[in-house]
């Protein structure tokens, strides 16, 4: 029962990045079975992620369709989601869909956050041609988790999942 419930929960697509499953995105923290109840632990990507209500409903709906009528979706806030939680398979799927995946990222947890003025970080590889001759055109975009870039080599504009 647990294996089956986990398979179903893992395979639910993310509503805003539908090429990824919740497992690929790394927001599914745990799936357990308590008696007849399936307990799913979920971490939002951003504080204001508007997709959380959709994800909760999708999980309940998909698990109900698979025969699990009693589903409890619990929020887990700590540790906060990081783009490092996206799986290698998830990064591959993002690139395949034309979205540059996040690079590995280890932000310090300690003292004051330095003012970067967005100057830091190596250029993002273009998901169309692979060139690193790219530039960021906007730090915010249509979803909280992505920014916008442009490739100088092939002229393709593309989205990129931010490193947080």
């Amino acid at each position: 029962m647990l294996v089956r419930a986990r398979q179903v929960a893992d395979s639910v697509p993310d509503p805003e990045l539908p090429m990824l499953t919740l497992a690929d995105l790394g927001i599914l923290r745990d799936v357990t079975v308590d008696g007849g109840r399936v307990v799913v632990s979920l971490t939002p990507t951003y504080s204001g992620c508007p997709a959380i209500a959709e994800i909760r409903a999708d999980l309940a709906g998909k698990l109900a369709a698979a025969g699990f009528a009693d589903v409890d979706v619990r929020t887990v806030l700590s540790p906060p989601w990081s783009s490092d939680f996206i799986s290698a398979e998830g990064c591959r799927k993002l690139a395949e869909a034309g979205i540059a995946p996040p690079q590995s990222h280890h932000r310090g947890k300690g003292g004051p956050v330095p003012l970067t003025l967005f100057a830091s970080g190596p250029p993002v590889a273009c998901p169309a041609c692979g060139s690193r001759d790219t530039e960021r055109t906007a730090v915010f975009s249509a979803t909280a988790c992505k920014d916008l870039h442009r490739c100088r080599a092939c002229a393709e504009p593309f989205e990129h999942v931010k490193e947080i």
Partner: protein
Amino acid sequence: MGFDTAYEAISEETDTGHRWAFGTGFTDPLAGVDTAVPAGIDGADLAAYCLMLGDDALIMSHRLQEWLARAPELEEDTALANIGLDLLGQARLLLARAGAADGSRRTEDDYAFGRGEGEFRNARLAEVTDADFAGLMARVLVFSTWRLALLTRLRSSADPVLAAVAAQGVKELTYHRDYAAQWVIRLGDGTDYSRARMEAGLADTAPLVPELFEPSAAEQRLAAVGVAVDPSGLRAEFDAVIAHVLGEAGLDWPESPELANVSGQAGRDGVHTEAMGDLLAELQSVARALPGATW
């Protein structure tokens, strides 16, 4: 199994019928989170503190939302929407935390839509209107620099819920601060005209700054037990970041008198500026016209 659009996802056959549009169906943002107040922490003080930080985010978010479709470029519209959404998310968590901490079980909606002006605890910086985009950038720079310094320290709060909200918020505010800093530099180091507008924006914002560093009685009590951050200790980091940005922009911090308190009271005491009434009238209009409505 996959969906090309969010609209396909919500209309699929496993839908239980409670959603009619993407983004509806709100649930308690702390559903499943352990909200027990740790031993030795005063629940009423903790709730008051969560309201201060939650109201700052809620009211600032509302002002940012007023800018949507009015920003100079589409990219700035999406930036302001994203910043407003991050702050709204922080507000939802903090207001829900307040209702759990004082045992009243009030929801985020009860706090946002059911309180009068005198019950809001935001600093007055969050509620004022902006004369123009430069004014908004001055205010976002000040607000995010102060809040980032605060949340950085709040990550080690003795309240695990506050610590978790802070840890997520730090990632978000880092983006907000850099965004506003870039605009302040671009406008300050731009043409004579853009520089004059940026100077005016800073001059409008400066009188509201000292209030941010004045601790309330509840903050001091909570800071003493490791729950809250005493804001008076944030001034040095704040000044260093602002000086760095203004140095890049070729601007000076304006010498402006502090906005006066009223009988010693200000935003943390529920005493607000004239702008707050108009803001709440709009924010609460639907909830007041249709009490208890859900969608």
